[in-house]
């Protein structure tokens, strides 16, 4: 009796199984788009930048994709589940991207701080360099003053040009000593804030009037030469002082030669020091 029932059951099972399978294959199908959703999810899950940054959302997307992958009789339901899966994947992706941006922000702010620090360091370096340049310039000035044989006096820097500049009784500059004047012109062009007084002096040979006139003409000659060298005329004044400001005795030839001179007084200014 038992065996009979068992046999009958087995027969039914054998007969029905193919029928059921046939029904299955004809009925529920995997919803369209589920495979695509799975691919998209795999892509997100294998993205080294994003995969670890939205674990909860990715898990939800995983569940949604699994639900979408189940074969459905109801095509509309299948479509709905695929839609939900697609959206969950997109949400997870955006959340991971947000998190990635936040994580990158620390690095970006470090970069910005470094750039700021760099710019300040360079600014300080630049200030240091400016100071160095100023020091260099001051040293240059001292060297140039020494080269010009200038004396630092209360009236300013005094450069004395000897009478070798001029022929006796003449006011025309001689070629030989012009090098010294060129140095002076270059110096004046380098320090445009300084004004210049040019004073002509003579010995006591000849009449006082003549000497006054001669000293004025000689001072003018020097001024004209400096103007030709590019020194602005409004910085220059020329005076003929005649024979009354001797710096040596007029008794000896050497003394008289020292008295025949042109003095150039360069004002001391705060600028350029």
């Amino acid at each position, binding site marked *: 009796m038992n065996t009979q029932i068992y046999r009958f059951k087995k027969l039914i099972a054998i007969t029905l199984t193919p029928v059921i399978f046939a029904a299955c294959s004809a009925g529920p199908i995997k919803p369209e788009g589920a495979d695509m959703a799975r691919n998209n999810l795999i892509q997100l899950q294998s993205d080294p930048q994003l995969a670890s940054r939205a674990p909860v959302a990715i898990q939800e997307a995983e569940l949604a994709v699994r639900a979408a992958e189940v074969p459905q009789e109801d095509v509309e339901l299948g479509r709905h589940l695929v839609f939900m899966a697609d*959206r969950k994947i997109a949400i997870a992706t955006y959340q991971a991207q947000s998190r990635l941006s936040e994580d990158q922000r620390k690095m970006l702010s470090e970069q910005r701080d470094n*750039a700021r620090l760099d710019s300040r360091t360079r600014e300080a370096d630049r200030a240091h*360099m400016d100071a160095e340049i100023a020091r260099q310039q001051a040293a240059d000035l001292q060297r140039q003053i020494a080269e010009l044989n200038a004396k630092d006096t209360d009236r300013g820097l005094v450069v004395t040009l000897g009478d070798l500049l001029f022929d006796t009784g003449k006011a025309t500059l001689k070629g030989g000593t012009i090098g010294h004047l060129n140095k002076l012109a270059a110096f004046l062009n380098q320090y445009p804030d300084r004004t210049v007084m040019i004073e002509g002096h003579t010995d006591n040979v000849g009449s006082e009037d003549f000497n006054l006139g001669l000293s004025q003409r000689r001072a003018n000659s020097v001024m004209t030469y400096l103007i030709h060298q590019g020194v602005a005329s409004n910085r220059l004044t020329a005076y003929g002082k005649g024979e009354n400001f001797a710096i040596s005795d007029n008794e000896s030839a050497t003394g008289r030669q020292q008295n025949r001179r042109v003095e150039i007084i360069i004002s001391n200014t705060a600028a350029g020091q």
Partner: protein
Amino acid sequence: MTHRLTRMKVIGVHGSLLQLITAVAILFSLVACATVPQPPNQELAAAETAINSADQARAVDYASAELQEARTKLAAARAAVQQEKMILAQQLAEQSRVDAELALAKAEAIKAKEINDEMMKSTDVMKQEMQRNTGDKQ
């Protein structure tokens, strides 16, 4: 041995009876459900909450299409409730919710990236300025 088998069979027969009763009960309850469908209130509320959250995050500025879709679907879900198409209503409400959540996530991602871009830009400007300044001196 045989005795035990017979006992099991008896239990089996009883089990089948129980299953039949249960099946009938479930069938009845399903029929009952079908005749008095419940609106998907929970899903509708969730969709509304999600839309509000997206609104507060100014998603309209960054993901207006997604937000609009969420609103349209919520309205459609409510219309489906009116027509007593509760399954459709539930699906639409669920879709509305994920649309709104997507709008929010997208807006947040764009905002986060904008901040980073701004930071990179200011760093670049600083670097360029620095190069220009040093260039002047050299």
